[in-house]
């Protein structure tokens, strides 16, 4: 049997991603033919709003889709593709809908089946394919989601999750507090600032001196298998406000009180990462102990943070296992992850009829029947 091809369309947040993927059901080989992405970045200090993000996706859909077809070498998609896959949810309503409208139009024009895909399942299947981790505990961390997941009996089951905001949202919003740019993405920029906590630069900018970063005081909020991030963000924002007071005082020629800790942007970013990542490592380790797994797969946009990968790797090594992570091409939202999860479902006979091809902001990972896995 020849390999099957699918087009995946992702637009649940500020990235519009379209890509072509192929899967051969007989040999179970997967191949990426194209992976095109266009990101909507709002100015520093601001977040992306649903209305503006949806407008971005509408404005770029045609050019991104054409580039995905061109890069994949497809000229007759109506014959070459098996299905059009789109993100059904979870995500922001307006961007999801704008992408779904275009995906429906493609499916109707080309006479192809539509497959609505759960965004989280897309991340998991993409991570499993790229890293080759067969049955890992999955830590899914992004701007909208924070979940510890393990597979059992054709469901991806949620072992622990955030009780309020996602870890990526916590980091992104703290980046806004410090006016750290959103381009290429805020979490990456926070990571770069945190690295600077390990040295000081001389006034003439030529020499770097190593220093020990200062772990500032932030709450640690693990509750059973779940995490809470909103209080940590609030506390970090207070520390940032205190830092700005110190900046103003020092600029006016004043001096800090006896024994007062000088707060810096670098130490703040370092501390925030250390605290929230330690929380994630703790609940992931507990899930691994519970299901008896030695593999941990990190997916989602926060998964490309190298410090998180390092901390997770230390924990996994202590347990005699290893961490599987991917780079930004596959970690960050993309079209092929939707294409892959959709194509696997399509091969089992799953279809999304046009009249049911809606989007939903809330769509839990464990609602999906993972018919393509039989282990």
């Amino acid at each position, binding site marked *: 049997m020849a390999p099957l091809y699918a087009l995946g369309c992702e637009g649940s947040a500020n990235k519009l991603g379209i890509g072509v993927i192929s899967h051969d059901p007989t040999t179970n080989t997967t191949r990426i033919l194209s992976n095109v992405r266009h990101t909507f970045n709002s100015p520093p200090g601001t977040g992306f709003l649903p209305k503006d993000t*949806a*407008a971005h996706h*509408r404005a770029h*859909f*045609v050019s991104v*889709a*054409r580039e995905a*077809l061109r890069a994949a070498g497809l*000229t*007759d*998609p*109506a014959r070459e593709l098996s299905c059009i896959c789109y993100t059904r949810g979870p995500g922001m309503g307006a961007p999801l*809908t*704008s992408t*779904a*409208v*275009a995906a*429906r*139009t*493609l499916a*109707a*024009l*080309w006479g192809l089946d539509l497959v609505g895909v759960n965004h989280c399942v897309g991340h998991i299947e993409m991570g499993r394919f790229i890293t080759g981790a067969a049955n890992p505990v999955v830590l899914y961390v992004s701007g909208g989601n924070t979940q510890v997941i393990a597979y059992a009996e054709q469901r991806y089951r949620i072992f622990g999750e955030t009780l309020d905001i996602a870890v990526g949202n916590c980091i992104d919003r703290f980046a806004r507090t410090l006016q750290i740019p959103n381009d290429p993405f805020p979490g990456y920029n926070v990571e770069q600032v945190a690295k600077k906590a390990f040295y000081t630069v001389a006034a003439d900018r030529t020499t770097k001196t190593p220093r020990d970063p200062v772990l500032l005081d932030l709450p640690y909020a693990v509750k059973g298998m779940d995490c809470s991030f909103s209080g940590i963000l609030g506390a970090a924002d207070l520390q940032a406000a205190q830092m700005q007071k110190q900046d103003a005082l020092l600029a006016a020629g004043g001096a800090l009180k006896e024994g007062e800790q000088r707060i810096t942007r670098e130490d703040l970013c370092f501390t925030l990462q250390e605290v929230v990542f330690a929380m994630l490592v703790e609940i992931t380790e507990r899930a691994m102990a519970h299901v008896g797994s030695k593999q941990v797969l990190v997916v989602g946009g926060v998964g490309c943070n190298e410090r998180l990968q390092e901390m997770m790797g230390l924990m996994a090594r202590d347990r005699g296992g290893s961490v599987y992570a991917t780079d930004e091409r596959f970690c960050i939202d993309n079209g092929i992850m939707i294409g892959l999860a959709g194509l696997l479902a399509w091969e089992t006979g799953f279809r999304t009829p*046009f*009249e*049911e*091809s*809606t*989007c939903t902001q809330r769509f839990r990972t464990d609602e999906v029947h993972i018919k393509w896995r039989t282990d």
Partner: protein
Amino acid sequence: MAAAMETDQFPCVLTVQVPFPTARLASVALQSLQVDKELSPLVRRTFTISPPAGDANTTGDQDKTLHVEYRATTNRMLRVAVNSFMESLNLVIEVMEHLDADVLAAEAHST
């Protein structure tokens, strides 16, 4: 009676007629646009495909005009709903223009 209630509660009405070059494209637009529900209970909408108004028997053509009737409780709600519809319609037409099978085939042939 029911129709009268409808007019009472949803007095603000706008009908958009979108002529397409073929019946197939009109049907694609209908399929793509009618799936998502109106988010507000203050707005009602109906989609139909038929020949252009007042043009029923002139061409003998198939039905290729999309008629969308919006009804809302206030003009403000009507404006918000119709604006949102126009944005989606624009996307659908753009996809048709640049990604339909014949367009891609023609481009592949010419290069």
